[in-house]
C-alpha cells in the first residue's frame, strides 16, 4: 500500500514551505528517520526526516515549489508498485483544492502574533482574517486572469496586481478590468518608476542616460515573515522611544581585562554581550519592561530571555540567549558567537529562535549613533544600540573625552509608560557605567 508523504509542520508558525532540496530520488529506498528533503520554512531550512519506510515511487513536488501544509510531496511504497490511480487522485485533489488555495493570502494574515512561541500566545485564537489583497495569486505567483482580461489590462496599461478578480478562484475577468478602468486605477506608467527611455531623457549634452530595468525580487519565506510580523507590530502597538546616553569607559576597560584573561580560552566578549547581560539583569529589576500585551491582561515574563537580532544577506533572524541574567559574560559570549555563525549559515533550529522576552538590536558596527526599532510581536520592548565613540562631555564643569553610547528603548505603550522605560534605562545605564555589577 503506497503512502503519500505530506509537507509536515516543522515549526509552530509554519503555514507553507519550500522544497529547498531533495535528498532522495525516485527508485531510492528510504528508511524511517532518514533525511529525505530540506524544507525552507518561515524560520529556517529544516531537515525533513521520513516518518515511513519504503521505495520512492514518485516525487510529486519539485525543488523550489512552495507548498501548503499537508500538500503531497512524494509517494512511498513497495518496489515498482503501480501508483497511477493514486497520482491521478492526487492531481484531482490538487485541482479541487484550487479554491482553497485561492484563500491562502487571507489565511496567512490570520496567523497569530506568536512566532516567538510565547506560551500564552500560543493558545490564543487567531486574529480575524485581514482584508485580502487586491489580486489573488496562485502558488507560482501568477495572478489568475482570463486571456481577454489580460489583453484588456495590457491595453489599458494596468497591472493585474492592481485589479481585484471576481471570477472563480479570484480570476480577473473582463468586468473587473472594466471596473478598474471606470474607478480610475492608475496605469502602471504613472506610478511605476520605469527608467526613462533614451529618447526622452538626456543630459545637458544631449546624451541619453543609461537605462536599467526594475527587478522584482520574490519574497522569501523569511521576508514574508518579516513583512507579516513587523507590519502587525506597527499596526497594533503604539510605539514610544526613549534614548539614553551611556558612558562606556568603565565597560571598555572591564572588557579589555576580561578578554585578556580569556584570551587563552579563545573566548572574546563583545560590547553587545555586555549589553545583553545588563539588559537581562535590568529586566529582572523592572519586570514590567519584560512583558507583553494581550487583550486578557499584560503578561510579565518570569524569565529574561534576550533575543539578539542577526542580519543576514536577505533578512534577519533573532536567536535567543535564554536566562541571560544568570549566565556569565563568558558563557554569553560563547553562545552569541555560535548563534551568530549558525544564523548566517541558516543552521539554527527553530527552538533557538523562539521564546525571547526582549530583544537587543545593535547597528553600532556601522557607525549608527542611535535609531528606532520595531517591537517584536510577543514582546514589550526592543533595545536599539548605537555606536560607541569618543565624545566631549562636560563633567563637573570640565570638558572631558568619554566613550559614549546611546541606546534607545523602543516599547509598546500599551504595556508600559515612559516612566517605566526611563527607570529601566537608568538601571541599565548604572550596570554598564559601573560594570562590576555584571559580575555578581
Amino acid at each position: 500500500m503506497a503512502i503519500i508523504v505530506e509537507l509536515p509542520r516543522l515549526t509552530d508558525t509554519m503555514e507553507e514551505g519550500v522544497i529547498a532540496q531533495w535528498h532522495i530520488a525516485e527508485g531510492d529506498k528510504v528508511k524511517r528517520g532518514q533525511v529525505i528533503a530540506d524544507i525552507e520554512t518561515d524560520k529556517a531550512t529544516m531537515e525533513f526526516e521520513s516518518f515511513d519506510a519504503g521505495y520512492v515511487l514518485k516525487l510529486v513536488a519539485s525543488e523550489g515549489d512552495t507548498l501548503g501544509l499537508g500538500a503531497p510531496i512524494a509517494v512511498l511504497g513497495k518496489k515498482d508498485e503501480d501508483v497511477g490511480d493514486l497520482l491521478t487522485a492526487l492531481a484531482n485533489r490538487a485541482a479541487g483544492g484550487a479554491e482553497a488555495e485561492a484563500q491562502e493570502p487571507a489565511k496567512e494574515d490570520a496567523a497569530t502574533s506568536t512566532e516567538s512561541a510565547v506560551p500564552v500566545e500560543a493558545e490564543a485564537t487567531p486574529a480575524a482574517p485581514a482584508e485580502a489583497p487586491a489580486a489573488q495569486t496562485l502558488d507560482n505567483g501568477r495572478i489568475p486572469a482570463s486571456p481577454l482580461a489580460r489583453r484588456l489590462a495590457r491595453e489599458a496599461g494596468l497591472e493585474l496586481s492592481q485589479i481585484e478578480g471576481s471570477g472563480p478562484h479570484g480570476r480577473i475577468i473582463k468586468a473587473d478590468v472594466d471596473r478598474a478602468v471606470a474607478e480610475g486605477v492608475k496605469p502602471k506608467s504613472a506610478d511605476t518608476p520605469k527608467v526613462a527611455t533614451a529618447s526622452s531623457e538626456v543630459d545637458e549634452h544631449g546624451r541619453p542616460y543609461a537605462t536599467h530595468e526594475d527587478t522584482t525580487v520574490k519574497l522569501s519565506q523569511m521576508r514574508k515573515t518579516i513583512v507579516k510580523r513587523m507590519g502587525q507590530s506597527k499596526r497594533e502597538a503604539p510605539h514610544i522611544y526613549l534614548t539614553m546616553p551611556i558612558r562606556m569607559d568603565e565597560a571598555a576597560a572591564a572588557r579589555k581585562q576580561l578578554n585578556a584573561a580569556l584570551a587563552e580560552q579563545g573566548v572574546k566578549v563583545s560590547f553587545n554581550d555586555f549589553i545583553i547581560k545588563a539588559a537581562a539583569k535590568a529586566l529582572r529589576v523592572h519586570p514590567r519592561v519584560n512583558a507583553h500585551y494581550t487583550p486578557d491582561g499584560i503578561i510579565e515574563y518570569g524569565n529574561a530571555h534576550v533575543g539578539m537580532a542577526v542580519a543576514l544577506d536577505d533578512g534577519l533572524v533573532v536567536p535567543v540567549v535564554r536566562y541571560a541574567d544568570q549566565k556569565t559574560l563568558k558563557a554569553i559570549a560563547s553562545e552569541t558567537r555560535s548563534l551568530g555563525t549558525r544564523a548566517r549559515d541558516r543552521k539554527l533550529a527553530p527552538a533557538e529562535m523562539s521564546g525571547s522576552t526582549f530583544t537587543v538590536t545593535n547597528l553600532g558596527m556601522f557607525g549608527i549613533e542611535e535609531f528606532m526599532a520595531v517591537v517584536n510581536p510577543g514582546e514589550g520592548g526592543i533595545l536599539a544600540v548605537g555606536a560607541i565613540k569618543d565624545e566631549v562631555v562636560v563633567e563637573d564643569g570640565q570638558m572631558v573625552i568619554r566613550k559614549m553610547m546611546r541606546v534607545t528603548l523602543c516599547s509598546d505603550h500599551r504595556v508600559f509608560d515612559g516612566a517605566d522605560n526611563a527607570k529601566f534605562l537608568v538601571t541599565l545605564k548604572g550596570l554598564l557605567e559601573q560594570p562590576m555589577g555584571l559580575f555578581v
Partner: protein
Amino acid sequence: MPNLQIRQAIRDAMAEEMARDENVFLLGEEVGHYNGAYKASEGLLERFGAKRVIDTPIVETGFAGVGIGAAMCGLRPIVEFMTFNFSAVAFDQILNNASKIRHMTNGQFGVPIVFRGPNAAAHMLGSTHSQAFDPFYAHIPGLKVVAVATPYDAKGLLKSAIRDDNPVVFLESELMYSVRGEVPEEEYVIPIGKADIKRPGKDVTVLTWGQGVPTALEAAEMATRHDIDAEVIDLRTLRPLDNECILESVKKTNRCALIYHGWPYGGVGAELIARIQELAFDHLDAPVLRECYEDVPMPYAENLEHLVIPSAERGLAAILKVCYKA
C-alpha cells in the same frame, strides 16, 4: 411556403436531384418498397423505378462498396444507412475507399457519393444502437460531414451533398424526422461549410449541431431569465468547420459553451475548443465548456438514458458557468 417535416425535405431533395441528374440513384435497406425505415424515401420507387431506387440485402459493407464503385464509374449514389450504427460495418469502405480513392489515384477517380441516415441516440435503443458517429467521420481527411436540424437546412444541404464531387456523410436524427419547418417551393441549395446563427445574441456563443440544436435553443431561451442573451450557432457542417462564423461570434461574446449530442472524449467539441483557444485566445473571458453525453456507454433504461443525454437544464448550467453566473 410549405411547412414540411425533415423526412419530407430529405425526400424532396433526393427527388429533385434524381429528376435533375439521371446519374443520381438511391440504395439501401428498405428504401424502396417499404418507402424507407423512416419514410424518407416515400414514393421514390414509384416515381423513379427499381433501377434507381434499390432495396439491398442487409450487408452494409457490400452496398457501401457497390455505391463507391458506382461513384468511381461516374454515377452519383445516395447510400442510406437505416441508422449510422450500421455504418460501423461499412467503416472500412468509407475510411479506406470513399475518402482515399481521389488521393490514391492522384485524382483519376473521384467518389461523388452521399452516405446518409440517422445518427446518435434516439430513445431506448441501447448502447450499440445509440452511437454518435460525428467524430469518427469528421476525423477523416477526404470526407465532408454534414449534420442537419431543420427541414430547410436538410433540403438545401442534401442537394449540395448530392452535387458535391467528394464523399459526404450526411447525419440526420431519428427523433427529428417529424420536426416541421418552412421550406421554399423554389429551388435553393445551402453551401457545405457554412454555419448558421439560429439565434443571435451578444453575451455568450453556444455552438451546437444536429440533435443538439433544439436543446441549445431551449437552453438559450431559459438563459434570458438570467439576463443572458445567448447566440446559438448551428454548425450544420462538421467538416470543414466554419471557422469564420465561430470566431467572429466568440470574439464578440468572449465566452463559449458547446451543447451537443455526442461523447466528450476526442469529439467534435474538443476540436472546436482547440480551435477557439488557438485562434481567439486573447478574446476569451472564461474557459470554453461543453455539455454533452456523459462519458459512459448509452444506457438502455429510460431514466438512466435521460441522465446521459444533455438536457436544456444542463445546457443552461453550462451557459451560466461560462458567464460566471453559476
